[in-house]
C-alpha cells in the first residue's frame, strides 16, 4: 500500500477513535451527569454570574430560539462596525484598510453563521484585532450556537412529553468551556510546535538566497486555525487557507486539522442516540452518513489520483495524481480526502484549491454541500439530517397506511409542512441565486461594480458556470469553501451570498427545533407492534433513498450544465 493511502487511512481511524468516545462524553456532559471536566464548573459559574444568567431556567422552544437569535443578531451588529473601522483600531501592524460596507456585510454574516465564505484575503484584508476579536471569537460562538441548538433538539426527545428544551445559555457556555476551548488548546499547541506562527509579530522581510526581497505575512494564527477546524468553521488566517505552509506546515498538522474538523460532527450524531437512550438510532444515522460520505470520498480520490487527462496527453507523468492547486507535502490523495470531508461537514477550509480539482471531484464537492446532512456542521448537521428523516417518516407512513410517528410522537401536518419548506429552501436559494448570477453575467457584463460581471469568471465554459454554482451552494450550505477563481468581492456577490448565508443558516436551525418542540408537547404513544421503527437498518436505507431522490431531483440539471458537461468535454 502506498504511503499516501496509508496517510488517509490513519486519518480515518483517528477520526473514529476520537469521535466515538467524544459522542458518549457529550451525551453525559449535556445531560448534567458527572464527567471529568466538572473542574470547569467554577469558571462556568463565574461566566454566568458576570453575565446575569440563570443556567437552570427552563425554556420552551420559542424562548430558546429567541435567546439564540438575540445574541446572534448582537454579533452581527458588533462585527459589522468593527470590520468597517479596523483601520482606526489597534492591533493592525500591517496597516490594513477598513472594509467596504458590502464586504463587511458579507463577512460578518459569513462568520456569525459558521460559513466563513471569505471575500477578503486574510493577509491584506484583516488586522490581528479582526482575526481574533471577530473571526476567532465567532469561530467559537457560532459552533457553540449550533451545538446548543442540537442539544435542545435532543432534549425534546429525551423526555416523553415536555415543553422544556433546556437552557440556551447553559448549553452554549458548556459547549465552549467543556468542548471547544479545551480541544482548541490541544490543537493550537500541536500546530505551533510544528511551525505555525502564534506570536503577535507583524510582517517580516528578508533577502532570499537569490537576492530577492521578500515580505512574509505572519501573526497569531495557530490559535485561530485550531478552532477553525474544531468548530467546522473554515475561515483561515491566510488567503490560501490550509494550503498555506504556515497554516498547515506538514503531514502531521494536516492529519491534525482534518481529524479535528470531523470529530465533533461525528460525536454529535452518536451523542443524539446516547442522550435520548436509544443508542441504536444514533448508530443507524451514523451508518447512513458514513455510507454517504464514502460514496463521495472514494470517487473523489479516484478522480484526483487519476490525474488531469489533458496534461497526460502532453506526455507528462502524474505518478501521484493531478497537482494543480495542490501541495507536494500532502499529495493528491490527502487533498481529495480533505476536499470531501470539508464539503460534507461544512467546514470549507481547503488544503488545495477546489477550483483546480478534476470535474468529477468538483461534482462530489458540490453534492456534499447540497446534501449537507452527512455529518454536517457542528450541531447543525444532525438538524439537517432530521429534516430528511421527518420526510422519510412521512413517506413511510403513507406507504404503510399509518399515521407517521417519530419516537412516540405523532408527526402531523404542521411538522411535515415545516420540514417540506426547509427541504425546498436549499434548492430554491441555490438555483435562483445561480440563475440570477448567470443572467447578470450574460446580460449586464459591463455593470460598474468593483469587479465587472464580465470579468467574474476565472475559467471559460462549463467550469465558469460551476464557479457560480459552487459559490451559491457554498453560501447556502454555510460551507465557505469556494471555486476561488470567482471575482467575488463586489456588491453583487457580497449581498447575494450574504442573504443566502443568513437564510441558509437560521431557517434550517429554527425549523427542526420548532418541529422538535411541537412534537415534544404531544402525548407520548408507547411503542406497539404497529409502530414504524426508526432505528432499524431498513428505515436507515429508506432515509438514504429519500436523501438521494430529493437531491438528485433538485440538482441534477444544474450539475449537468457544470461539472458533468466539463467532464465529458475533456480528453479521455
Amino acid at each position, binding site marked *: 500500500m502506498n504511503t499516501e493511502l496509508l496517510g488517509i487511512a490513519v486519518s480515518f481511524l483517528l477520526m473514529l477513535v476520537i469521535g466515538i468516545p467524544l459522542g458518549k462524553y457529550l451525551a453525559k456532559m449535556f445531560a448534567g451527569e458527572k464527567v471529568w471536566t466538572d473542574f470547569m464548573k467554577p469558571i462556568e459559574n463565574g461566566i454566568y454570574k458576570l453575565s446575569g444568567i440563570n443556567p437552570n431556567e427552563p425554556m420552551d422552544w420559542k424562548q430558546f430560539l429567541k435567546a439564540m437569535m438575540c445574541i446572534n443578531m448582537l454579533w452581527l451588529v458588533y462585527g459589522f462596525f468593527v470590520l468597517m473601522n479596523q483601520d482606526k483600531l489597534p492591533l493592525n501592524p500591517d496597516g490594513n484598510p477598513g472594509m467596504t460596507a458590502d464586504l463587511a456585510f458579507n463577512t460578518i454574516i459569513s462568520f456569525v453563521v459558521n460559513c466563513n465564505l471569505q471575500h477578503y484575503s486574510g493577509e491584506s484584508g484583516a488586522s490581528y484585532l479582526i482575526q481574533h476579536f471577530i473571526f476567532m471569537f465567532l469561530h467559537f460562538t457560532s459552533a457553540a450556537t449550533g451545538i446548543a441548538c442540537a442539544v435542545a433538539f435532543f432534549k425534546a426527545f429525551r423526555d416523553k412529553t415536555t415543553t422544556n428544551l433546556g437552557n440556551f445559555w447553559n448549553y452554549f457556555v458548556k459547549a465552549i468551556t467543556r468542548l471547544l476551548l479545551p480541544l482548541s488548546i490541544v490543537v493550537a499547541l500541536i500546530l505551533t510546535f510544528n511551525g505555525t506562527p502564534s506570536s503577535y509579530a507583524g510582517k517580516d522581510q528578508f533577502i*532570499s538566497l537569490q537576492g530577492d526581497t521578500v515580505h512574509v505575512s505572519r501573526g497569531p494564527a495557530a490559535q485561530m486555525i485550531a478552532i477553525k477546524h474544531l468548530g467546522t468553521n473554515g475561515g483561515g488566517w491566510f488567503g490560501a487557507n490550509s494550503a498555506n505552509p504556515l497554516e498547515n506546515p506538514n503531514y502531521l498538522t494536516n492529519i491534525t486539522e482534518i481529524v479535528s474538523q470531523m470529530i465533533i460532527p461525528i460525536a454529535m450524531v452518536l451523542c443524539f442516540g446516547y442522550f435520548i437512550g436509544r443508542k441504536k438510532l444514533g448508530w443507524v444515522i451514523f451508518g447512513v452518513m458514513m455510507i454517504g460520505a464514502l460514496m463521495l470520498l472514494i470517487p473523489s480520490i479516484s478522480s484526483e489520483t487519476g490525474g488531469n487527462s489533458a496534461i497526460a496527453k502532453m506526455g507528462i507523468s502524474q*505518478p501521484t495524481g493531478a*497537482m494543480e492547486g495542490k501541495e507536494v507535502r500532502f499529495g493528491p490523495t490527502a487533498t481529495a480526502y480533505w476536499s470531501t470531508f470539508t464539503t460534507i461537514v461544512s467546514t470549507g477550509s481547503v488544503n488545495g484549491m477546489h477550483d483546480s480539482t478534476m470535474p468529477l471531484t468538483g461534482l462530489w464537492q458540490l453534492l456534499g454541500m447540497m446534501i449537507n446532512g452527512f455529518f454536517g456542521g457542528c450541531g447543525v448537521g444532525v438538524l439537517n439530517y432530521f429534516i430528511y428523516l421527518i420526510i422519510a417518516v412521512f413517506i413511510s407512513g403513507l406507504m404503510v397506511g399509518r399515521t407517521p410517528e417519530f419516537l412516540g410522537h405523532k408527526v402531523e401536518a404542521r411538522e411535515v409542512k415545516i420540514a417540506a419548506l426547509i427541504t425546498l429552501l436549499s434548492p430554491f436559494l441555490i438555483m435562483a441565486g445561480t440563475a440570477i448570477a448567470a443572467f447578470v453575467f450574460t446580460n449586464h457584463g459591463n455593470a460598474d461594480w468593483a469587479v465587472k460581471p464580465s470579468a467574474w469568471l476565472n475559467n471559460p465554459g462549463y*467550469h465558469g458556470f460551476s464557479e457560480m454554482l459552487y459559490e451559491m451552494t457554498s453560501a447556502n450550505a454555510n460551507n465557505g469553501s469556494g471555486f476561488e477563481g470567482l471575482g467575488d468581492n463586489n456588491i453583487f456577490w457580497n449581498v447575494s451570498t450574504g442573504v443566502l448565508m443568513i437564510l441558509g443558516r437560521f431557517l434550517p436551525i429554527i425549523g427542526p427545533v420548532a418541529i422538535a418542540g411541537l412534537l415534544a408537547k404531544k402525548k407520548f404513544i408507547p411503542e406497539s407492534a404497529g409502530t414504524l421503527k426508526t432505528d432499524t437498518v431498513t428505515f436507515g436505507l429508506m432515509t438514504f433513498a429519500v436523501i438521494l431522490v430529493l437531491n438528485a431531483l433538485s440538482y441534477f440539471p444544474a450539475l449537468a450544465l457544470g461539472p458533468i458537461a466539463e467532464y465529458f468535454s475533456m480528453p479521455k
Partner: protein
Amino acid sequence: MKNLVKSIRLTLVLIVLLCVVYPVFISFAGKLSKGQGNGETISVNGKVVGYANEGQSFTQQKYFWGRPSAVGYNAAGSGGSNKGPSNPDYLKDVASRIDTLLKYHPYLKRSEIPAEMVTASGSGLDPDISPAAAKIQIERITHNRQLTVMQVTDLVAAHTEAPLLGLFGPAKVNVLKLNVALDDLAKPAN
C-alpha cells in the same frame, strides 16, 4: 430586552476568555517552539535567507528550482491559480512550462517530468518538490557548478524527507534547505 442585556454581558466575558486569555496563553507556549512562534527561519552566515516552511523563487541555473507559483512566491499573500482542468489558456501555460523545462534540461524525456514541476501549487508558496523532481535537475546543477553527479545525488538523498514515521504521506525535498546545502558544498574548503 432581558436577553439583550445578557447577550451583551456574555459577549464581553467571552471576548476576554476567548480573544485574550486563550490566544495569549498559546502565544506564550509558542515561545518555546522552534522559531519562537514567529515561524522557523533559515540563516546563512547569521543572515536570514528565508522561512523553512515557505518556498521562495529559484530561477538561477545553479539552484534547484521549486514549483511554479501563481503569486510569484510573494509571501505577503498566498494563493493558487484557480485554473480549471479544462481551461485552454491554462493548458497553454502548462505546455510552455514544459518547453522551458526541456530547454534547460535538454537531456530529459517528457515522461520523466513530474506533474508538480509544471503545475502551480495551492498556496503559491509550496516549499517542497518530490524526490523525482529533484533528480531530474541534478545534471543541470552539475553543469553549472564544479560538482560531480555523485556529490549532488548524495546531497539530494540526504535532503529527502521520508513520509511521516516512514509510513504516512508523500516523501519530499525542501528546496530552500537543499539549495543552502548546495551553496555550502560548493564552497572551497579552507
